[in-house]
C-alpha cells in the first residue's frame, strides 16, 4: 500500500491490489450507509481514500481527528466530512505514516478531557457549596424562618403531628385532674415566658423519655419523661426549654436549614454513594453543630424563665442527665439531637438559684400530673381524634 508520502499508484498495485483480500488493513465507512469499503490510502497534500479506481473521499490532513477505538486499530474521522464517516486502519506502519501528517489529530478526542481542569472545577464547586452550607444557609434559615407565615408553620406542625402519632401510637393522656395540673404548669411557664397566646400542649403516652415542640408551637411531653421526673421543677425546665424552641422558631429554621443542607450535599455527592447514607451522615455532622447552638439558646430561654418564676434550674439538668446517663450505656448515638454536653450541664448548675418563688405545683397536683396517663375511664373522653 503506502509507506510514505511518495507512494504512488505503482506501489499500490504491488501489494495494494489486495482490496478483496480479507486482510486489507484499511476500511472506510462513508457516514451515509453502513457499507464496508475496503480502501487504499494515498497520502498527497491531503488524504485520498480510494476504492478500486474511484476516490471515495479526500480528507485534508488538518481536518482529521482521532475517533474512539480499542488499541490495535486507529479510527479516524474528519471534521469536514459527514460526522460519522470513519476510516479504520489496522496496520501500525500505515497508521504511523498517516498520523505523522495530521497536526490536529487529538483535538477534542475522547478520553483526553483535562483531568486537572475537572479536578480544579470540582474542588471550586465543592468549596462554594460547603461555603453556602456553612455560612449562607444558617443566615438564610434565620431570615426565612421569620418570613414563613404562622398558618403555614401550623400546617407543617399538623402534618408532623399526624406522623408522630402514627409512630408512637398517638394516645394523649387526659386524666382530668392530671390535665388540670398540666395546664396550670403550662400556663405559669407561658406567662413567665411572655407568650400571650395559649400554648397548645399535651402529654403523649409512650415509654420514650422525651419532649419536643412542633412547628406552629405545639409542645408534646412524653409520659416516659414524666415517669422519670422527681419534681415539678424538672418538668417545668424541660417545658420551658421546648417553649424556647417555639419562641425561636427553631423547627422552621431547622427545616429550612436541613432541607437545604441535604439538597446541597446530595448535589455534591450525587450517586457516588449509591444510597443516602453518606448524605445523612454528613448532614448530621453539619446540622449537629447547628442544632447545638439552638439547644443552647433554648437552654438560655429556659434558665431565664425559671429565674423569673423563682425556681431552680439545676433540676432540669439532673433529669436529662438521669436519662442520657442511663441511655448512653446501651445506645451509641454519635449525633444525638439533644446532646448533654458537659458545658450545658455546667451552665444549668451555674445558673442555679435557690427557690425564691412558690412551688409551681402542690404535692397533690404533682401526684395527679404523674398519674395523667392512668386511665380515668369515667367522665373524660379520651383524646381528640
Amino acid at each position, binding site marked *: 500500500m503506502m509507506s510514505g508520502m511518495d507512494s504512488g499508484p505503482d506501489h499500490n498495485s504491488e501489494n495494494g491490489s489486495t482490496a478483496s483480500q480479507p486482510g486489507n488493513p484499511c476500511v472506510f465507512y462513508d457516514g451515509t450507509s453502513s457499507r464496508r469499503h475496503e480502501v487504499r490510502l494515498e497520502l498527497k497534500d491531503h488524504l485520498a481514500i480510494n476504492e478500486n479506481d474511484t476516490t471515495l473521499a479526500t480528507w485534508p490532513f488538518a481536518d482529521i481527528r482521532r475517533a474512539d477505538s480499542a488499541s490495535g486499530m486507529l479510527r479516524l474521522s474528519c471534521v469536514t466530512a459527514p460526522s*460519522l*464517516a*470513519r476510516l479504520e486502519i489496522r496496520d501500525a506502519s500505515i497508521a504511523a505514516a498517516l498520523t505523522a501528517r495530521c497536526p490536529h489529530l487529538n483535538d477534542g478526542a475522547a478520553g483526553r478531557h483535562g483531568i486537572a481542569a475537572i479536578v480544579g472545577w*470540582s474542588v471550586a464547586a465543592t468549596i462554594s457549596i460547603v461555603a453556602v452550607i456553612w455560612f449562607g444557609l444558617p443566615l438564610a434559615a434565620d431570615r426565612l424562618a421569620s418570613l414563613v407565615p404562622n398558618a403555614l408553620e401550623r400546617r407543617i406542625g399538623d402534618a408532623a403531628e*399526624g406522623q408522630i402519632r402514627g409512630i408512637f401510637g398517638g394516645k394523649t393522656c387526659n386524666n382530668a385532674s392530671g390535665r388540670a395540673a398540666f395546664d396550670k404548669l403550662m400556663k405559669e411557664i407561658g406567662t413567665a415566658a411572655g407568650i400571650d397566646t395559649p400554648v397548645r400542649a399535651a402529654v403523649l403516652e409512650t415509654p420514650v423519655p422525651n419532649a419536643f415542640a412542633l412547628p406552629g408551637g405545639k409542645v408534646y411531653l412524653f409520659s416516659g419523661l414524666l415517669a422519670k421526673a422527681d419534681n415539678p421543677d424538672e418538668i417545668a425546665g424541660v417545658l420551658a426549654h421546648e417553649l424556647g424552641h417555639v419562641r425561636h422558631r427553631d423547627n422552621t429554621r431547622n427545616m429550612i436549614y436541613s432541607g437545604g443542607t441535604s439538597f446541597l450535599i446530595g448535589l455534591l455527592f450525587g*450517586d457516588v454513594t449509591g444510597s443516602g447514607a453518606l448524605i445523612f451522615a454528613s448532614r448530621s455532622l453539619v446540622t449537629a453543630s447547628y442544632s447545638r447552638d439552638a439547644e443552647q439558646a433554648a437552654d438560655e430561654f429556659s434558665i431565664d424563665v425559671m429565674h423569673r418564676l423563682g425556681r431552680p434550674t439545676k433540676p432540669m439538668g439532673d433529669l436529662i442527665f438521669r436519662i442520657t446517663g442511663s441511655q*448512653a*450505656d446501651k445506645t451509641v448515638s454519635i449525633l444525638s439531637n439533644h446532646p448533654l454536653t458537659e458545658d450545658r450541664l455546667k451552665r444549668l448548675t451555674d445558673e442555679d438559684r435557690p427557690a425564691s418563688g412558690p412551688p409551681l405545683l402542690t404535692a397533690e397536683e404533682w401526684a395527679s400530673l404523674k398519674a395523667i396517663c392512668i386511665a380515668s375511664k369515667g367522665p373524660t373522653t379520651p383524646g381528640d381524634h
Partner: protein
Amino acid sequence: MNQMTSVPLHPPPIPGEVSFSGDRDEFRGLVERGAGLELVTFGFYRFWLATDIRRHLWSHTSVDGDAPEYTGRGRELLIGFLFALAILVPIYLAYFIIGIEAERYKAFASFPLFLFFYLFGQFAIYRARRYRLTRTVWRGVRFWMDGSGWAYAARAAAWTLLTVLTLGAVLPWREAALERYKMQHCHYGDLPGRFEGRGSELFKRGWRLWLAAAFPVIVAILAALVGRIGGLPPGGSSIVGLLSLIWVFALPFIYGAFKAIEWRWWISGIRFGEVSFQSDLSGDALYGLYWKVIGWFLLILSLFVIYLITCSWWILGFTDMVHLASRLQGSFAITAAAVVGYLGFILAMNVVLRVYLLRDLWARVAASTAAFRLEAAANVAAKGELANALGEGLAGGLDVVGF
C-alpha cells in the same frame, strides 16, 4: 444448495461472531483510577468515569469483526445532570408543599406522591437508553430511538402495579411488554428494531426460580396453617431455621440463575430488521460473579468495621471503656473519621461492582452471543438524530437503574 440433501431449505445461517477482547487489568485500572478521582473531585468525576467505562466496553466488543464506537462525552452527562436538577428542584419543592397539605388531611396520605416519582424514574430509564443508543455508532451508522418516555413510564407503572398485586407472577410478561415497547422504537440507521421474546417463554424457564425465591412466603403461609391446626411438631422451629439458612445461601444461586435466563432470553429476542441474536449463556455462568461480589463485600465491610474500631480507640484512648458510648456522642473527630471510612468503603465497593457486575458480566454475556443474518445490515442508510442526556441526569438524580 446444489444437491438435494436432508438439510432444510434454509442453509444454516453463518453466525457473526460477537466477542469481547477488553483487558481485565486495564479495566480495573480504569475504575480504580476513576474511584480515586471521584474522591478527589467529590463525585463530579462520575460523568467522565461513566463515559470512559462505556468507551472501554463498546470499543472492545466486536460484532462480526467490527467494534461499535461510543461517541458520548462526560461533558454531555454533566449538562444533562444540571438540566435534571433544574427540573427536579421545583418538583421537590412542590412535592414538599403538596405533601404537607396531604398529610394534614391524613397521616401518610402523601404516599401516592411516590407514584409520581416512580413515573419520573421510568421516564428517566427510557431517555437514558435513548442517549446511550444515539451515542453508539457501528460501521459509520448510529443507533437511535424515538417513542415517548412518558408513554413508556405509564406502561411501566401499570405493569408494576399488576406485578405487585400478583406477587411477581406476571413479571415475565411485564418485561416482555416493556422491552417490546422499547425495542420497537430502537433503530439502526433505517433498520427498525423489535423484540420477539415472549413473556410465557421467560415464565416457563424461570417459574421454578420464582417459587424458590418466594419460598419463605410459602413456608410462612404453611406454618400459619399448621399452627392453626395443631401447632408445630417438636423440633419444627429448628427445621424452619435450617431451611431459612439454606434459603439465604441459595439466594445468590437463585438470583444468578435468574439473571442468566433473563439475559439469554433478552438477547435472543432482539431483532434489527432481519438481523437476530442468539445467546447460549448457561444457567450457572453468573454464580461465580455474585459470590465473588459477596466475598469482596464481606471483606471490605470487615475492614471498614476494624477501621472504625481502631479509630475510636485511637481517638478516645484505650482506657475507660465504660463511658465509651457516652464519649462517642457528638465527637466531631469520630464522625469525620467515620465519613472518610465510609467513603473508602463505598468507593471500594464501586470498584468491585464495576469489575464484576459490569465488565465481567458484559464479557460473559458478549462471549455467549452470536449474531445472525448480518448481511441484512450490510448496507443500511444512516438516519436518526442525537438525543440529549437529560434522561441520564434524571436517572442519576433519582437514583434509578435500568437500561
